[in-house]
């Protein structure tokens, strides 16, 4: 019994290491989470996660540099901009990705202090009509 447990644990460790190695191969050196300034009446601070967003587009140019600067990042985004289809609203417009009309959407961006927004949550919608690429080192142009 004890022996089975041990070998089971060993296999779990091997599997974990293999998975870890695989994850390391996919690791991208991305900028840290970007906290945006909290505006008056905001339900919570927006903390932007690159980790979460690179899963949606294989190109950094989907957002950079037409929507967001990258060397000197924008520190403020407004709902007015967003609703005009600029800034976050270029994708978060209720068509490509959840937007201001989605009542459950608020809390997905306004995560507030102390919460990691880097963890992909269940049911995270993919951008409409776009392929969902993987960031593996094996990926090569076809």
């Amino acid at each position: 019994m004890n022996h089975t447990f041990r070998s089971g644990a060993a296999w779990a460790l091997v599997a974990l290491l293999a998975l870890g190695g695989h994850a390391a191969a996919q690791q991208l050196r991305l900028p840290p989470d970007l906290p945006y300034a909290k505006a008056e009446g905001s339900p919570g601070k927006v903390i932007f996660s690159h980790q979460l967003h690179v899963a949606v587009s294989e190109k950094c140019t989907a957002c950079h540099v037409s929507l967001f600067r990258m060397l000197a990042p924008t520190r403020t985004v407004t709902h007015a901009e967003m609703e005009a289809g600029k800034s976050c609203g270029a994708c978060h417009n209720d068509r490509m990705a959840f937007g201001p009309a989605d009542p459950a959407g608020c809390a997905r961006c306004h995560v507030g202090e102390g919460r990691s927004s880097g963890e992909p949550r269940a049911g995270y919608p993919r951008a409409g009509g776009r392929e969902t690429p993987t960031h593996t080192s094996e990926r090569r142009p076809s």
Partner: protein
Amino acid sequence: MKGAILFDSTKCIGCEACVAACKEKNNLPAAIDPKLTAYTWTVVEPRNTAFIRRMCMHCETPTCVSVCPVQAFRKEPNGPVLYDASRCIGCRYCIMACPFGVPKYQWDRAVPIVQKCIMCPDRIAAGKAPACASVCPTGATTFGDRDQMIREARTRLAATPKKYVPQVYGVEEVGGTSVLILSSASFADLGLRTDLPRAPLPMLTWQVLSKIPDVVVVGGALLYGIWWITNRRTKVQEALAEEAAGKSESRQR
């Protein structure tokens, strides 16, 4: 320190962060052209088996610098090949001369200038990596001292020889460049020129041009000498003829 960019195509995932950073740094229009243009100074080209970045190679002995009749181009000791638009007369010799086809002209403007990657000289001077190298999420584009980058590239070749073509592109090509490239596919497959000489390209014309002053001076002296001799010969003949004519005249009297 002489700066150099090391591009390892085996690490590139084609995300184009470098392109976006370049656009932002140099205040270029956000639209990305598929090839190098005056408004897109670097591109990530998908090839058969890998991605390859196109950008100025920042040659150690650049052809653009040597051909420019007004010295609008210059090679900085710390790596970059810079361009001064205020000197440019728009002759576009640089465009014809560049072995990598890098300098591009603003064909859509009334008063166009030449444009190309300038390796973010202000960032390098401030001790930072160029914009493209600073944002690369995979470490495919890195920046550092050229000698150290060559060592780093050779370390990678030695560590995983099966992964790479056993050569660092840019160490010797056209006398060396400040952009070094590692690849798993052959360099020709990546669209890199493999027919380039090891010697700097300006040496080709220098071998001829350096002899021109000698040819002018020696040739000029020679031609002057021939002229002096023939001229004197005719003068002497004329004088003799005159003398002979004078004698016969006096005899007739």
